[in-house]
Structure formats: C-alpha cells, structure tokens
C-alpha cells in the first residue's frame, strides 16, 4: 500500500515536471529583434524586396563574415517576416562541402572555388555550376596586448619573424627600430594562430609570403604551417586569448578587434597604415576579377600601390549555382542576396567594421544575382 501511494507521488512529480516543460515550450516565441537587442546599428528595412521569400534558408561557411551576416539577417528578418536565415559559421571548407552535397542554399567562403570543386558542383547545379559572388571585404587586423604600448608599427619582415618564433621578446632591436618612442617591455612574445583551417590564415600567410618571402619560408595556406606558437579556435577564440594574455599578438578580422589595439603596418608608402575599413577598401579597389563567365572570383593585391592602402585584406564570397539552384529556396536565396548586395546591404558592412565591395564589382554581382535561376 505504502509503495503504491509513493508511486503515485512520483508519478505526480514526473507529470508536474513534464507539464512544466511543456508549458515552457508552448509559450516560447522567437526573438525578432524589434524588442530585444541594443539596436545601436539602425538599418533601413524599407528597401528590402521580399518577393516570394519564405521559410528557412540554411547556409554555412566562413566565420569571417559571421558578424556581417548577423547584421544582415536582423534587418532582413524585420522586413520579411517569416523568413528564417540560418547561417552556421562552420568555416569555409565545411561550407563548400555542405553546399556541394546539396545540404545548403549557399555557402560563404574566404577563398574562391577550386576547379575541382566547380566540376563537382555540376552535379548539384542542374544545367549550371557553382559561382563565387564577392560580398564582404575587410581588413585583417593584427591585434596585440603589450601593456604600456599604445601604438605599434611593424613591417612584414618583423611580423614574419614574430610569428615564426625568431623574435622572442617585445624589446627586440628589430621592433625597437620601428618604434623608437615606445616603451617596450621585455615581456615574452606570445604569438597566437588559428588552430582550425581558415581563410583568414590563408590571406594572412599569403601576405607574409608576398611581402617578406625571405623571412617567411612556409607555404601560405589555410593551415598554419609554422612550428611553435600558441593557437585557438576561430577568430573569436584568438582575439579573446589576445585580450587575456599579456604579450600576445594575433591576426583576425577587424570586427573582432573590439577593445584590442591593432598594429600599424609599415608598407612601401611613407606613413604606416592603420587597419581601418577605408584603408582596406583602397587595397580591395585594386583587386581584379579573375573568374570566368558569371563567376566573380577576385585576385587580391598584397602590395597595393595606393597611398594609405592596408594590404592584409580578405574577401568573402557567397557561393551559389548560376543555374539549377534548389527550387524551394531559390526565391529566398535571390531575395536575400539581392538585399546584401544592394547599397543598403553594403552600407551595413561599413557600420560593422567590414569593407564594402568596390562599386564596379558589386554592380556585376547585382546583375548576376538578378539572373540566378
């Protein structure tokens, strides 16, 4: 008897827990951005054309453009109620893989498609192929945490030596020579790199190799080839390590440099160049379109001639099919891409520490987006 009564109590307790959970889930609601959030970055939602956009839009890829996508999604969701853009910042390679397997509507990638990948894409894009659409540009800032040093100038060779474990302390003569006025401590240099494969690493090492080939013996690529140093996962990971660790230095997109001091680059130009959106735009403006047909892959110039151009830059492409996109998401994809390539969309980038794509190229992007099928 006693046992039974207690059973009933256990059951009641369980029922209570279950109904509690149900109540919790039943009255849940989606955050639409109209109530919560800081709302600091206002966008003009009126110009967004929703057309037939509806349902879920799954995409994945580069984490470099995550902050830009977040801002776009927010504005877009306010204009087009009922559309859910789900961008998964898994990394460029994973994004392309998922796209080529037909899992997502588009991929974000920091490097243009390889010929083999384009070949593979013909299976997914019926009657067409995958193309690169440059959407987001940005400077890769070199952030540091050296107590007492507010301005730091480095050139490509010194930077290569720092990341190659040749320069071990901050008061090294090579750094002193570039910064005669700074009070450099003898703190050990803690150079952080990305532990995951990344387009940011790719562009950063390409710069090092291009600008200081003698000091940087390693092959540029998505994987960090140099030995030694410390690592962390993702741009957010390395930037938070730089924040926590005295003597640290690392590279990440400018939008992650919140509260971190960044290095001014000594280039061919007279004055050291700061890592800013405008300076990066000057460098990106010298990029040339190398993609064939509708593909708009760019060739970045790591030794820009323009005065004040910041040479370590990154361009993120959205990868879609030119023909033969999935029918059920085509309208939504077009509408979203249309918005992010529009003037409003590109303006959002500037507010979030990214660089817009130069006018000449973005016009071509808009034409291509309009022709997607």
């Amino acid at each position, binding site marked *: 008897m006693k046992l039974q009564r207690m059973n009933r109590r256990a059951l009641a307790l369980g029922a209570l827990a279950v109904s509690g959970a149900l109540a919790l889930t039943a009255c849940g609601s989606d955050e639409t951005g109209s109530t919560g959030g800081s709302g600091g970055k206002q966008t003009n939602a009126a110009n967004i054309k929703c057309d037939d956009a509806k349902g879920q839009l799954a995409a994945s890829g580069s984490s470099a453009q995550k902050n830009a996508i977040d801002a776009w999604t927010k504005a877009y969701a306010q204009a087009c109620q009922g559309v859910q853009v789900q961008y998964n910042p*898994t*990394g*460029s*390679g*994973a994004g392309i*893989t998922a796209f080529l397997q037909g899992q997502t509507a588009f991929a974000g990638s920091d490097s243009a498609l390889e010929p083999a990948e384009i070949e593979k894409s013909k299976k997914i894009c019926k009657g067409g192929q995958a193309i690169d659409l440059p959407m987001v540009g940005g400077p890769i800032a070199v952030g540091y945490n050296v107590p007492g040093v507010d301005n730091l100038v480095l050139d490509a060779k010194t930077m290569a030596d720092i990341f190659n474990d040749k320069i071990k302390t901050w008061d090294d003569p090579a750094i002193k020579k570039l910064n005669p006025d700074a009070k450099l401590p003898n*703190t*050990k240099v*803690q150079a*952080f790199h990305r*532990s*995951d*494969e*990344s387009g940011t690493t790719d562009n950063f090492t390409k710069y090092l190799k291009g600008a200081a080939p003698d000091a940087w013996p390693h092959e540029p*690529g*998505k*994987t960090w080839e140099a*030995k*030694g*140093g*410390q*690592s*962390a*996962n993702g741009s957010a990971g390395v930037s938070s*390590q730089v924040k*926590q*660790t005295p*003597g*640290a230095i690392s590279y990440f997109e400018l939008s992650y440099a919140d509260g971190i001091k960044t290095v001014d680059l000594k280039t061919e130009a007279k004055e050291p160049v700061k890592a800013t959106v405008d300076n990066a735009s000057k460098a990106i403006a010298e990029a040339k379109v190398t993609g064939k047909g509708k593909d708009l892959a760019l060739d970045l110039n790591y030794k820009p001639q323009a005065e004040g151009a910041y040479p370590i830059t990154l361009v993120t492409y959205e990868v879609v099919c030119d023909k033969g996109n999935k029918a059920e998401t085509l309208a939504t994809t077009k509408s979203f891409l249309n918005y992010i390539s529009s003037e409003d969309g590109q303006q959002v980038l500037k507010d979030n520490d990214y660089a817009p794509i130069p006018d000449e190229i973005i016009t071509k992007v808009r034409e291509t987006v309009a022709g997607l099928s």
Partner: protein
Amino acid sequence: MDIATQTETAPPPPPPATTEQQRASRGATRPGDRIFLGLSRGSGIVLLVIMAAIAAFLTYRAALALSDNTGNFLTTFEWDANAIPPKFGIAVLAFGTVVSSIIALVIAVPVAVGIALFISHYAPRKLAVPIAYVIDLLAAVPSIVYGLWGALVVAPNLTGFYSWLDTVLGWTGIFEYQGGAPRSLMTVGILLAIMILPIITNVSREVFLQAPKMHEEAALALGATRWEVIRMSVLPFGRSGIISASMLGLGRALGETIAVATVLSPTFLISASLLDPGGGTFAQNIASKFNEASEYGRDALIASGLVLFLITLLVNGAARMIIARRKEYSGANA
C-alpha cells in the same frame, strides 16, 4: 582492422516472433518465453548490426585514408591531410592523449580513493549519504559545461600556480613555464582529473562498501586503528576494484572531446614541458579539424579516430577483465 571480418560471421537474425494471440494465452508458458527470448535476442542482434555497420564503415574509410598517406602514420609530426599529397601522423596526438590522461589519473586516483574511503569509512553517516549523492550528480555534469568552466574559470587562475611550479620544479624541464596562456596538456590533465573523479569515486566506493564486515570487526577487536583496518582489510579487498575504476576513468579521459577542445591550445609539436601550450589529443583533433576537412581529410581523421577507438577498447576490456575476475562477490551485498 579485423573487426569487420569478425562481424560478418555473426549469425543471421532469427525471424522476430510477435504474435499477439500467443501472448494472450497466459497458461502457455512456452510461447511467452519464446517471444521474450526472441525480442531480447533480436535487440541484441540489432545492436550488433549497428555496431558492425559502424565498425565496417570506419575501417573502410580509414583504410582509404591510410593508402594515400605520404607521411608515416605513426611517426609524422604533422597533420596535412587536406593537402594534395596528404601527409599526416598521429605521434603528437598519441603523446598528448596518453600524457594528459596519465596526468589526470595521477591526480584523480588518490583523491578519488580518499573520497571513497571518506564516504565509506570516515564521514559521519548523516553526511555520507548526501555526499555520495552529490558526487553522483557531478558525474552527470555535461562535458561542455566542464569545458566552459575550464576555459573561463580554471585556466586563467592557473598562471600563478604554474609560475610557482616553474620556480620550484622548473629545473627538471618538465615543469618549465614560459608565461603564455595556461592552455597546456597539464591544464587539460587537471580538468580531466576533475571530470573523471566522480566515476572513480563511485566505483571504488561500491567496492569498499562490499569489503567483508567480519574482517574489519576482527581487526578492530584486535586493537587496530581505523587506518590499520583500512590498510589491512579494506584496501587489499578493493585493490582490483580501484584498478578497474581507474581504467574506466582512463577510458573516459582518453575519449573526452569538447572539454579538451575548449581548453587546449593545439599545435602539432611535442614539447618537453607539460606547461607549454601545445600538443593535441585524438578526440580534440577530430573535433577541431573536422569542420574544415576535405573529404579525404575526414577519412584521415576517421583513421585517427579508429586508433583512439582501439586504445579505448583495450583499456575498457582490461577493466572488464579485472572486474570479471571478482565476479563471485557481485550479488553478495546487493
């Protein structure tokens, strides 16, 4: 590698027997038995089939990866599986996995045995039950939470301890500390120790509680102190239990993924000092390399996963054998 071939020889599933009418006739004992046996054997076979499928799949993919590797799988200090001639080796991963797990065991086993003894023989009765309960609960804390806590609370607080270790034991070379972020194998070991503590404690506590009361009382009657009782009658009885508990803990430490991935600063180098950031473990390497891996890179990661798999299997198997040897005790004090 022979897992796949072994599963092929598994007997084919018998036709599932689920006739409702047969079950309805309560008097007939044999049909009921047959159904029940069929059901339970059937689910055993389902499990076997799933497992065989996974094992075959893993071995197949791993074999694909190994055939194209230009490095030596066992000795190469690199993981370039996505490059066009792929080159990768598990030396660093094996080292990191073993070292961090050993650190975890060295820290966790004495402490866990201490807690187990505390619960079984030292704590006041009123305290022992809630403590045991709390330890049980901690075994259920998800590893992602341990990872979050390890990365944001433990690691930042270890710099002081590490500089101290460096001044006291730095001359050994093993405890040299360069002042970087404390995201080293040692930190991983400490975190793993905390994570496996509840498991080791639980299992050894069960064993200590099963120690024959008669022996203890006899020792006490002869005037032994409490410690002498434990040393002479409880610990000898529980030794194999402690060993198998440690093995189970080791098994968990070897395969831990997310917590290690959040705490470690992975590099493909073996450093003499445990306090230097760097190194990696099998599971961590899979988790952090997986996203960006090409199709071939994934196969390479699976090959490393297979190695982890075999190591874990060996450790778990050893633990099982030790437990099985003492089977005569189970059931005695249920």
